[in-house]
């Protein structure tokens, strides 16, 4: 779907359509670019501040693009007991970004998740849908290195 047809699907000046419109735009771009938010504000007839308020309220919306590798770190109870905080800190310092951010080269994003239901192999992370369990800071280093090599 191109950008124009996204907007065409929503009748203008209807504020109740704000969230589905934002969802479609995020689907298209992978995140919500600022210039698109301005167009959304014009289209639904709301101030940009209100659109921004909605975008920052819901976890589903992203204002920055995601990296090629999305690393989800489980911070559920079992993983926490098994040292997931150290795993998270290791990934953060390896990549030089915090959870919720994306590296400048758009290669990595870090997200935290409450529980992924894989407690038996805690601590666990998921990279682009692939599960990695029983991790240590050392194995993390290796995993990230592999991703970097693949580019």
């Amino acid at each position, binding site marked *: 779907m191109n950008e124009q047809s996204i907007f065409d699907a929503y009748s203008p000046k209807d504020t109740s359509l704000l969230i589905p419109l934002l969802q479609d735009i995020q689907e298209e771009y992978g995140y919500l670019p600022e210039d698109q938010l301005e167009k959304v504000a014009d289209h639904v007839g709301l*101030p*940009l501040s209100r659109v*921004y308020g909605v975008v920052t*309220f819901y976890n589903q919306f992203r204002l920055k693009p995601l990296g090629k590798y999305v690393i989800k770190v489980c911070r559920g109870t079992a993983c926490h007991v098994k040292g997931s905080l150290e795993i998270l800190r290791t990934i953060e310092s390896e990549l030089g970004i915090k959870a919720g951010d994306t590296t400048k080269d758009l290669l990595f994003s870090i997200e935290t998740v409450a529980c992924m239901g894989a407690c038996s192999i805690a601590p666990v992370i998921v990279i682009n849908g692939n599960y990695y369990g029983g991790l240590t800071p050392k194995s993390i280093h290796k995993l990230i290195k592999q991703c970097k090599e693949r580019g």
Partner: protein
Amino acid sequence: MNITINNLEVWANPGETILEVAEREGIRIPTLCYLKGFSPTGACRMCMVEIQNEGRLMPSCAFPVYDGMIVQTNSPNVRRARKTIIELLIANHPQDCLVCIRNGNCSLQTLAAEYGVRSYRYVGQRRKGKLDLASPSIERDPEKCILCGRCVRICHEMQHVGAIDLVNRGFNSTVSPAMDRSLNTVACVYCGQCIVNCPVGALREKSDQKRVWEAINNTDKLVVAQIAPAVRVSIGEEFGLEPGEIVTGKIVAALRRMGIDTVFDTNFAADLTIMEEAHELIERITHHKTLPMITSCSPGWVKYLEHFYPDLLDHLSTCKSPHEMEGAVIKSYYARKMGVNPEKIFVVSIMPCIAKKFEAQRPELGNDFQDVDAVITTRELARMIRIAGLDFERLPNEAFDDPLGESTGAGAIFGVAGGVMEAALRTAHAMLTGKDMPMIEFSPIRGLQGVKEASVDIQGIKLKIAAVSGLKNIDILLQDIQKGTSEYHFIEVMACPNGCINGGGQPIPSSPEKIKKRTEAIYKIDQGLAKRCSHHNQSIQKLYKEFLEKPGSHTAHELLHTHYTKRNRY
């Protein structure tokens, strides 16, 4: 229907809230987020009351009455809950009351004192926030914000600007412009209504007190002050006087005692504005130029049009606002008369307005130097009078300096919504007919409504006019102009509801009763003057004779007229 509040049976209308009924009965229920006339949000929970059979405490601002309802506004449960709410708010607050601009005038501080909060009972993580000091008019301190949302509702619902909103969620919630920008990079019009409606110190004016003191202490500078029409009927409130008390002479005396060299009156320049604006209106009508003409004295309104309707800028009167005209005349005519180098003159405007601070910095308002060097608000002047150790009430009444201190009743009524229109009609009538209007007072555009319309017949010219205040009220009229269906010849717009007497720089808190009294006082000033039409101002006549020639002359255009800038919405 009847309800019982604190064992007292009282009468209530269906649809009213408990808070409204209690207020009428003189029972005070504390509030923080409540804004009269706006939909309740129930965000702060301060107004909780106990309702029989409800099981838990309910916010009285949002709870409608029903027949036979039994309410307790002051039970032990209610008191305990309110105190806890205050303690929790304080726990997430900087606790720097001694150095806060709202020290002594803060709803949270007052409530903490009333409810006997004597310790910081809860200690925990505090929300971090970035100071936003970048705009020339408004400063934001998000750490002080208690998230009542009053500024947001005012900005969106009353002003249709929407520069700020609640963003993020939970612990990270904060009030911010879009994309976490600074206010000076979004379409904020600097009306300052957010400041007047903030219960705490999260929003404040950018202070220019220091620059004014520095100019006063600089022996090389001739400091000339001017006072806006609306300041003289409100500043008394800062010193415990009744709202609407007219204290013009005391302000003049205070300024002289503070060390200001010359004290002029913006009302003089209001008269001058009328001469130019009435002339411009007649020009536009007789030469079939762009109509309707819209007034340009409210800088918040001007910035609103620049951001949101840049295609309509030709409709704005080219007249500078009165204090800018006064500054321009001080630094040309008056400087020449006194033999003073205009670069040595420091003009300080005392205004009921925050947007005037931004306006004074506009590059087009001045040539080699700005027309006005500093703008301070009513509140800032009150602070300076206190620092100067002056007992305001005991000050004598002193008169303005000549010649830019003379004014008529027409200049005085600039302080209220509809006043500029009324003043302009008085002079336009005389310009067209050579005679003054038989009825000087024009009641159809008086009163506290947001939109006032009328039509007048001046020598066969039928004028359709409107006076609008509060920016939400102007959108429909502007859209009509865009569609080409507007029937008006002349529209007055004031950004703040009810005009300058309710400006963003006025004493806090404001209330409908105070606004009414300030308005009445302005009309009283007009009534008490022998001369009530701008063209009767002798100093104005002399100014044209000696310097400007006639309204709309080349010199007048150079000094008293301006142009506007297209701005982006984002």
